[in-house]
């Protein structure tokens, strides 16, 4: 196992190295550079442009630049932004990342959950009318033209019904006097979510050994509400009590993008779950479970869905990778400037250090996710462990 991990790691480094080089070459292949717009100013003498690109080293041959870039990269120096000099690429990413992370972790977990739940129901109620309708809806949301749909949602819920704000991640007038930057609030919210999830996870683990199913469920439900209750105190402590108003505003703005992306994103998981679960339902142990006299819900959730979960989780881990690069559209339409916007802007304006850093970030993210997918699959499915020995 250890050797497997080491091998995979070396493989990842090599892939990443190639990824870096290829990305750099691709960016270099885009005509022009970040300072080309200087040329469009008729009153600007040519030397202004030449001096500028010389300062940023853009006048040097590709091989020299690439070599320097790679060396600096592995020293941890991802360079200054061309456009936002002297901010570094890392600073820019650090600024944008919490927003993207917040929105898309919520969206992805929700989409996964909804998708898994819907898929489960679909497979279970195979042949019923509700299955037909949910399937049609899922296929619709799976294939819908996303920008159009997002605008439609904005129009309906924001403008027509007036329930949610139109775009943006906060209401400016509420933030005029805020003592915090939104980034700080975002980080606090993420921190809270992590604490909440970890606590709940621990509770789930602790209650695993309770023999009575009803008791187990009640304890979990009870502790969930207890956590909610404690959360209230949590958000009342110190700085957080001032921050909760702003966190609330951000949460309010999260609703529509989360809803929209979830509607679009759940369908993939739902349809995949449906397929895998229908396969699982044909398996003999489902019949055994029924013969044992287990309740329908228990068979569905514990036996069928649990096994069907494996491929779904894997596919989900792979889609986590697309969180950032797939966020361009969402971030644009919902005016949620995060990593997606950063990538878009930096590529459009040929701010190569920032673009490279963003892409490297995604690349590392992707590689780690795939690596985790492999490893976790091996751990989640006891069967894989044996197979890998043969």
């Amino acid at each position, binding site marked *: 196992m250890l050797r497997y991990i080491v091998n995979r790691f070396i493989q990842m480094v090599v892939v990443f190295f190639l990824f870096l080089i290829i990305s750099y070459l691709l960016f270099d292949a885009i005509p022009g550079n970040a300072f080309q717009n200087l040329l469009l100013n008729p009153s600007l003498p040519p030397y202004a442009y030449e001096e500028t690109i010389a300062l940023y080293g853009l006048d040097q041959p590709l091989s020299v630049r690439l070599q320097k870039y790679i060396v600096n990269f592995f020293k941890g120096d991802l360079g200054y932004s061309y456009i936002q000099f002297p901010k570094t690429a890392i600073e820019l990413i650090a600024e944008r990342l919490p927003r993207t992370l917040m929105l898309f972790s919520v969206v992805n977990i929700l989409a996964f959950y909804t998708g898994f739940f819907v898929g489960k129901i679909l497979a279970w109620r195979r042949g019923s009318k509700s299955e037909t309708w949910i399937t049609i809806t899922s296929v619709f949301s799976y294939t819908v033209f996303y920008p159009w749909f997002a605008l439609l949602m904005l129009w309906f819920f924001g403008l027509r019904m007036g329930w949610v704000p139109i775009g943006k991640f906060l209401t400016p007038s509420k933030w005029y006097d805020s003592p915090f930057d939104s980034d700080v609030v975002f980080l606090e919210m993420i921190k809270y979510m992590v604490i909440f999830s970890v606590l709940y996870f621990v509770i789930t683990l602790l209650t695993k*050994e309770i*023999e*009575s*199913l*009803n008791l187990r469920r009640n304890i979990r439900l009870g502790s969930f509400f207890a956590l909610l209750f404690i959360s209230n105190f949590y958000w009342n402590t110190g700085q957080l009590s001032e921050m909760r108003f702003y966190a609330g505003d951000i949460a309010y703005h999260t609703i529509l993008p989360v809803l929209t992306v979830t509607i679009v994103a759940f369908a993939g998981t739902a349809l995949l779950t449906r397929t895998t679960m229908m396969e699982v339902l044909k*398996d*003999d*142990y489902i*019949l*055994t*479970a*029924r*013969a*044992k*006299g*287990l*309740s*329908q819900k*228990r068979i569905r959730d*514990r*036996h069928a869905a*649990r*096994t069907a979960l*494996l491929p779904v989780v894997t596919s989900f881990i792979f889609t986590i990778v697309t969180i950032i690069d797939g966020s361009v559209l969402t971030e644009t339409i919902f005016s949620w400037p995060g990593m997606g916007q950063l990538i878009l802007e930096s590529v459009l304006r040929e701010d190569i250090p920032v673009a490279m850093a963003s892409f490297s970030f995604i690349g590392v993210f992707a590689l780690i996710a795939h690596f985790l997918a492999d490893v976790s699959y091996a751990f*989640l*499915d*006891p*069967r894989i462990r*044996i197979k890998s020995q043969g």
Partner: protein
Amino acid sequence: MSDIILDVQNLSMHYETLEGNVLAVKDVTFNVKSGESFGLVGESGCGKTSVAMTLLQLQPENSVISEGSIKLDGKELIGLSENELRKVRWDSISIVFQGAMNAWNPVIKIGEQIREALREHYPENSKQTNIDKINQLFKMVGLDESTANRFPHELSGGMKQRAVIALALSCDPKIIIADEPTTALDVVIQDQILNEIKKVQELLGLSLIYISHDIAVIAEMTDKIAVMYAGSIVEIGPTSEVFNSPKHSYTKALLDSTPSIKGEKKKLKSLDGEPPSLINKIEGCSFAPRCPNRNISCKPERDMKLIEVGHDHFVDSCSLGENYE
């Protein structure tokens, strides 16, 4: 020994498919007494598994029980709601499925899967009670206690099958249905499993319904057998009597086609043709098209009906000659 624990009367069941109704079980009547081993033998597709499924009311959704009654310990099973059935399943009647390899959920530990049944039927049990019970069961079927913490794939086929038997026994059922429990196991393991079943059955005084296509196994395992063909029982009676004086041509054909390592090496007789399609109702004798003794001593046009030919030995009327009406 003589009290009837399972009484199946005139059971008919069909599957509704796009091509038409598949008449899987036709007018099947039999009973199982307390502590008795009852064998159900026949080729694949003859309806024996459908009977087993119907006994537990686990038949697929597209199946319809058109007629008949299943009384378990005097209680009618047909028409019970899913929740009522859940109480009966495993508690009174449990099953060891064909292809036991796949009877285990691959991602849940063996012990957990057995405990699950215990929890469902004995919600008041403490965890320790359940664990003790499982250990006891494992001991009974010759498994180590540590098996409870293993995943299914970590066990060999034989161990898995032993564990399945432990699972089937977990809720102290009155009847166990064993549906081809040793198919796909090799002979030595099969021998061990059969032994185990016999031992447990005697120990606990259970009734056993043993379903198989293997005449040799049935011969060893059962007190009484029913031979099924095309959804119907064509011959039923005490095992020794059916083997020693088979009356139905199909029973004879089955016996003639089974190789043995004992006795003279004899030329076996093959049975040509295929079982009939069950989609359409068959008039008269369903075995007639393949019957090697057709029209010699039987009346294939006669409707199928079981006629007693010896003590507790019944055979399909159309395979009998003129004397039986």
